[in-house]
């Protein structure tokens, strides 16, 4: 565990929107053919020349569908293996903080993906739209031990697509649909926290921003996972 593979974006921007496929910046084939927990075969895997914290990266030429998915009983083990216990920093070194978010500088850190376990009632979604922007800004408010209360961009495309299908593009309705989806996961939720690629907004300093990459039911995970 600890490795991850990702479909390659066709541009550097993050994707989203299931209702408006013409705005997708990833190959729709890559997005559409997988379901959550699908087992895929890595074609031509090659160790990426990874810069910390993204040391889990593997380059692949393609991902083949195997038709199998991870058995239910194994899913908690997979999530548990990336939990960070006690008061150790999530990504191996303490996160730098801004008012609402947190980040690491490229070249630091020991990993870029972890799992945090928390009660579902502590997870709050908020969404709004900047007029003229491509899509709504969807954020989640999380209470992260050792980090504090943070508002993180939601990058769980599976959950976002599901919410957009039911709620449309209205930001308020979108937030409610996400809330509902997480409520349905049970009382305890495993939140996959990840760090973005180093991003320079204009002054030459790249930062890897903390993101909420995935939400999973965690009813069976031990409470020692934080």
């Amino acid at each position, binding site marked *: 565990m600890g490795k991850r593979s990702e479909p390659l974006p066709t541009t550097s921007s993050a994707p989203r929107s299931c209702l408006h496929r013409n705005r997708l910046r990833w190959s729709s084939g890559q997005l559409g053919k997988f379901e959550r927990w699908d087992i895929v075969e890595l074609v031509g895997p090659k160790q990426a020349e990874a810069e910390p914290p993204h040391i889990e990266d593997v380059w692949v030429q393609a991902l083949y569908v195997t038709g199998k998915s991870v058995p239910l009983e194994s899913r908690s083990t997979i999530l548990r293996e990336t939990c960070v216990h006690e008061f*150790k920093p999530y990504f191996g070194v*303490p996160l730098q903080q801004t*008012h609402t*978010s947190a980040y690491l500088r490229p070249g630091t850190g020991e990993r870029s993906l972890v799992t945090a376990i928390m009660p579902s009632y502590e997870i709050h979604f908020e969404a*709004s739209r900047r007029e003229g922007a491509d899509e709504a800004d969807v954020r989640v408010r999380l209470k992260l031990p050792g980090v504090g*209360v943070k508002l993180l*961009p939601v990058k769980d495309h599976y959950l976002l697509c599901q919410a957009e299908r039911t709620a449309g593009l209205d930001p308020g309705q979108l937030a409610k649909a996400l809330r509902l989806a997480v409520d349905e996961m049970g009382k305890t939720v495993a939140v996959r926290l990840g760090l973005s690629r180093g991003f320079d*907004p204009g002054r030459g300093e790249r*930062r890897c921003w903390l993101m909420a990459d995935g939400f999973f039911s965690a009813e069976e995970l031990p409470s020692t996972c934080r």
Partner: protein
Amino acid sequence: MPLTETHLTDYLLSVMHGVLEDLGADEAEPLGPESRFADVFDSMAMVEFLGLVADDCGCEMSTIEECVDQRFSTVEHLVRALSAAGLAPTDHTESPVHIAPLSKGRVETPIGKWKSRQLADLESRRVAPAATRTVWLAGSASVLPRTIQSGPELDAAVGRPTGWLERRAGILQRRVWGNEDPIEAAAACAAESMWNARLRGDRLGALVTVSEAPPIGVGLAAAIHQRLELPKNTPCFETGGACTGFLSAISLARTLVHQFGPVLILSVEAHSKLLPLKIGPHGESAALFGDGCAAIVLGAEPGRGPSARLIDVQTFADGGAADLIRILPAADGGFCLEMEGVPLTEFALHALATVTRDMIAKHGLSIGKLSAIVAHGGNGRMPAMLARLLHVAPAKIWSEVRMTGNLGSASVPVAWSSRPAPVSGPVIWTAVGAGVIWGVALWDVQAGAR
């Protein structure tokens, strides 16, 4: 007075400049009232901006989003929406809204009404009314031993080169009782705190003593009780809890106040009597610790002088981490300490930072709103490291450890009462110690307290 739209515009533009600066982002074009958020901010910057404005206005971010129906257009559009909703940064109106007690005589401006609703909502979310009835810090005092052991003296005592302790632990000197009677000094400290609270001994409800290195093996509370000439029906209690003991005692006293009346909490530490300096790791650990005492008076009402209201106090324990600090009996009858340096420091710093962040988040505050963070200093480097972890100026972390050594349970109240400068607003006390036990208290300090 509510802000004018011009002032509100200036305020929002200054926050926007600040966000772009903080995130290292370029300003594509000069900012003005007509600037569109979509043109200025990406998603990350937008949330940062909203978070800051919400914090300054003392409301949730969603409140601001609702003002504009979740759609952000231009700066002037947001100004109109905030004005219509009666939202404004509190720094431009009154003192911090989050924890200030409601005054019945206050004039209810639209912003004042909104604040009242926020306060009422905050109060309604609090639970366990018996345990959370208002408690005030009515007086405090501290007494340090006269004898100073300098860093070079300590270095020599543990067989290390000059400057070793300062480099290793950031401790320049420590205080030790020497020939002084710690009980006498502690009783004097207690009396001073009661005088500062304008409280007579016969009005004291209960006495709580705290110590991890007590100057006498048993009967500390009774000894202080006797020196203070308290009535025999004034109950006294003894607690431990290592370096977090004072916060544990505050948590206990919070309920005792309503049962017995004003409670005096006294910490007295005599590490030098129990942890001898000698060559080797045990002696080197002992050199980190100093002696001292401190006291506070908690009451159901403010003292006659300025006071601080206890908003919340929480303690935590994790016996699974006990091996980070081991206290073992020594062959000579005393004790010796064994500490796992780096993991212990890491655990301690993250515990202090986490409880601080969680406590202020629980009460709708931000780090920036805190007037001070009074923190236990396990060693002289920890306060600065905590400042870095919390992203606050080092001066905001109050600790005396560099000049006193680690004072155990007295560390936090000594740091509090050693500072002459008056402060106002929310203040955090936080500590972590052997066990492992850690905790945090949030106070609302009125101007000129102590």
